[in-house]
């Protein structure tokens, strides 16, 4: 009984704990059996986190971006191909040529050149780089965005805490909120240049008529509620209230990039990804906790060098402008920016002038949220075939994300099959990024 009063979870008549309330209230892990009692410890910590207002923007490079043509060029070598290197705003750090906007803001960016992993198939690697776990049929691991939304997102927010821009393909690979449930599921925005699907009232329905409709809906639900549907009707009502709050939120216009000046929209680039990054900045500014923006086209099995040039045209202005704007608006300290794909590409250039999948050595870029920019972590050998120093695994990388966001990676959530699942299994944060 003592434990129950501390945790105040709902139990039904058979003594079975409702999984949802359980998940919200239990924090088991390193915090453990502190003197304060679990609920107190969790509540205090959570409040603290929310006050800090940390946020995260994940720029996902779908397809596996070539490290040789991004942040780890090998000019003059056989594996480096024709790609040249360029200097950046930081002495001693060179990246592949053509990334001019990113080079300008290198003081704020940290590059990890020594990522190493085993998954070389798109769906498995994408899953792993989104959840930190290799796919296991039985457990639906939650994506990074869902964990972050669950840990530090405000549950009363009228906007979703996790927004995913341009990432519709990922849901099919089983990447979502997993066992954490609907409240932290990614809210999909297919097209960054228009409002999300179905948030606009239909043309012939104004606010007044919408209210009237909601009113008669509630009115007519009564009989069904009385004849055995009570709890269902109540859950439904809460859901519709949340949806209506979202439509009516004064913050909803954060979804409208059309409100930005042309010059700003041009700086990000008038591409879906560019406008998506702009949208991410607006959403984080409005208080959304986690925004993922995806761009495809990185799976350069053929014509790698021309293909990456095209990618560069899209990603360089977007990424560069995002960092610049976050800095200018004083948001960078509380916003973690992650640039990554599911793996890198082969040192060997194939017969179609392309590069194939290569998880053995690839790179990731990070900025914001206490990450010290202008530095490189780890290195690869001259030909880029193996990691030469300071290997970083996927669990290490995820521990780093959570350290920046002040989330405990050892905390355990209980899955729907009553298994305790740590936020990250193993791994150590890359401390050199923070000191």
């Amino acid at each position, binding site marked *: 009984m003592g434990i129950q009063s501390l945790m105040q979870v709902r139990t*039904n*008549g*058979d*003594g079975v*704990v*409702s999984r949802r309330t359980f998940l919200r209230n239990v924090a*088991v*892990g*390193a915090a*453990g*059996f502190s003197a304060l009692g679990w609920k107190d410890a969790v509540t205090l910590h959570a409040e603290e986190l929310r006050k800090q207002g940390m946020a995260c923007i994940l720029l996902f490079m779908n397809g596996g971006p070539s490290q040789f043509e991004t942040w780890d060029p090998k000019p003059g070598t056989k594996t480096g191909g024709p790609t040249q290197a360029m200097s950046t705003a930081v002495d001693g750090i060179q990246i592949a040529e053509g990334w001019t906007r990113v080079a300008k803001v290198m003081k704020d960016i940290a590059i990890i050149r020594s990522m190493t992993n085993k998954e070389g*198939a*798109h*769906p498995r690697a994408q899953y792993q780089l989104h959840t930190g776990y290799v*796919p*296991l*049929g*039985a457990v639906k691991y939650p994506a990074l965005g869902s964990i972050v939304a669950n840990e530090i997102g405000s549950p009363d927010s009228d906007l979703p805490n996790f927004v995913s821009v341009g990432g519709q*393909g990922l*849901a*099919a*690979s089983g990447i979502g909120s997993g066992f954490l449930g*609907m409240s932290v*599921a990614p*809210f*999909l925005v297919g097209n960054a240049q228009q409002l999300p*699907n*179905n*948030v606009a009232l*239909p*043309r*012939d329905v104004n606010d007044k*008529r919408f209210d*009237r*409709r909601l009113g*008669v*809906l509630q*009115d*007519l639900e*009564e*009989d*069904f*509620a009385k*004849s*055995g*549907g*009570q*709890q*269902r009707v109540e*859950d*439904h009502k809460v*859901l519709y209230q949340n*949806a209506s709050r*979202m*439509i009516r939120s004064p913050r909803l216009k954060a979804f409208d990039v059309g409100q930005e000046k042309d010059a700003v929209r041009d700086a990000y680039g008038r591409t879906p990804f560019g406008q998506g990054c702009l949208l991410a900045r607006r959403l984080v500014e409005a208080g959304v906790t986690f925004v993922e923006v995806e761009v495809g086209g990185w799976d350069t099995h053929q014509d790698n060098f021309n293909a990456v040039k095209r990618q560069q045209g899209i990603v360089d202005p977007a990424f560069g402008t995002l960092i610049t704007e976050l800095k200018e608006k004083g948001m960078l300290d509380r916003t973690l920016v992650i640039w990554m794909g599911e793996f890198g590409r082969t040192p060997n250039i194939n017969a179609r002038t392309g590069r194939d999948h290569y998880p053995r050595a690839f790179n990731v870029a990070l900025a914001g949220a206490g990450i010290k920019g202008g530095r490189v972590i780890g290195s690869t050998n001259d030909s880029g075939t193996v990691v030469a120093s300071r290997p970083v695994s996927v669990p290490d990388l995820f521990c780093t994300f959570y350290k920046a966001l002040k989330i405990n990676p050892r905390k*355990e959530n209980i899955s*729907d*099959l009553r*298994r*305790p699942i740590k936020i990250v299994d193993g791994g150590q944060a890359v401390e050199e990024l923070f000191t």
Partner: protein
Amino acid sequence: MCDPRKRVSYKLGWLAGILAAGLLAATAAADEKKSRLPKSPPADNVKITPEAWKTGPKTPATPREIDQLLKTLLAKDNISPAPLTTDEQFIRRATLDLTGHLPVPADVDEFTADKDPQKRAKLIDRLLDSDEYARHWARYWRDVMLSKATAQQIFLRAPRTIGLEAWLFDQFKANKHWGEIAREIITATGTLSLQDPADSGAAGFLAAHFGPDAANERAADTARVFLGMQIQCAQCHDHPFDVWKRNQFHEMAAFYSRTRERRFGMGQQAGITITAANAGEHQMPSLEDPKKSTRVDPRFLLGGAIPQDQPDPARRKALADFVTSRDNYWFAAAYVNRIWGELMGQAFYQPVDDMGPQKDAFLPELLVRLALSFKAGNYDMKALFRQVMNSETYQHQIRLGESTGQHMHFAASYPTRLRADALWESLVNVLGTFKDPPRQQGGRQGQLGAAAMAFFRGLGTTEGQFKREFGFDPSTKPDEVEGSIPQALLLMNHPMVNDKIKAKDTNLLSRILKSYPDDKDALRILYLRTLARKPTDREMEKCNNYLAKVGNRAEAYEDLLWALINSTEFQTKR
């Protein structure tokens, strides 16, 4: 309402879970690998097979017998069962349960007016004979069987989704028995491709997994779907909540150790063939040294080995024999548990694919009797539907307890959310077919078969969008299926939905308003179309008040239709 024994065991289980989790954390700093691995509960005195399975009646259970047995079981609990469903409620529920469709208003009227005392039984028979029955249940099992797929390339998803559904449809239409279906799936070979997905559809289940872990995944999924048991925890350590040991898991995987898949082609030419290797044994990795492993030979989870070095067809035939053996309680019980859960809204074991000798069940005596009945009928699925649906137990009204998760002990039916396919059918039934504007497909034409084309086209349409938003894993515990904001937004604001609600052109509402100038009739037909029932007197009053308030007949009816489509009841099976 609460069996004290069950309450204690649940609380203990929960508490044990907390303590186990806490213990795991506390010892994490210490020897990480060793102390982390939980041991399974002692297996010495555990009966894998219930005694009653061996000694119980060997005859099919009649509906009356089911009612009697439940009455006896509930006598001590002093629970009064819910009243029987009205005819209106019954025809909606039975039609949704068997076909995933709403009954049309004419059928509802006819059924309620019919004086034949056998009418409910006859309705059940009619529904079981329909194509819609076969399609509805093919889709259910397709979703169940593919829900844990790990092979997610889009060009492989399409052929196995289309192929498996098509094959299952044929089996259900011909009323093949569950034992035969299980056998064909476990032993399936053949090719699934975008050009011809329906060929070798049975292989869709195995094709959901490939790669180095495929044998493990297939074994785990075979246990989940056909035995109702989650054994994959035991892949790495003894199962913390049930008797399965690690080597038992791998002995199951060994049945699949020579099953291979060959993926071929790219893009539109892609496909997968389930085939066999000539050699290969299953290796269980050592926990101490990941580079070491031991060879494991096939042995069935519930007992039963085969000679060594068997080729793939012999292994899988043996597995099919063991799984579908008439001695195997869990094969019969897993199927019955699921179907009972679908029909009653709550099952004996919940979640429905988390059964086992040490798991807690509600009223297991009834499950054993039904499993015996299913076996006696040689696993005839339509026979089981008939037995259950003709019982009074099935025909009770819905009732919820104090909390959504409370188990009603089958004294009442439990309201569940309609699955996406069924909900879409209901929406189309009310608003008519949705014609999305033609889109530029660009590059996908050519050699794709019609089914594959429809699959891909469907992804981008309103129907595709709708089914993506409203879809959920059918094995999820019903009280844990949640609505989402995009679902609500879709039904509230989708431009095409709203367009079809309007009282214009040939829309439903325009026809209703023209044909029924009297509001009493118009409201009646509106409710019949959307909720398959007549409005109550109170609802009539509320609607009439609303009509008066708004003043404009068309506008008011549009709002009412909107409210009915957005109502809880529209999405609920009651």
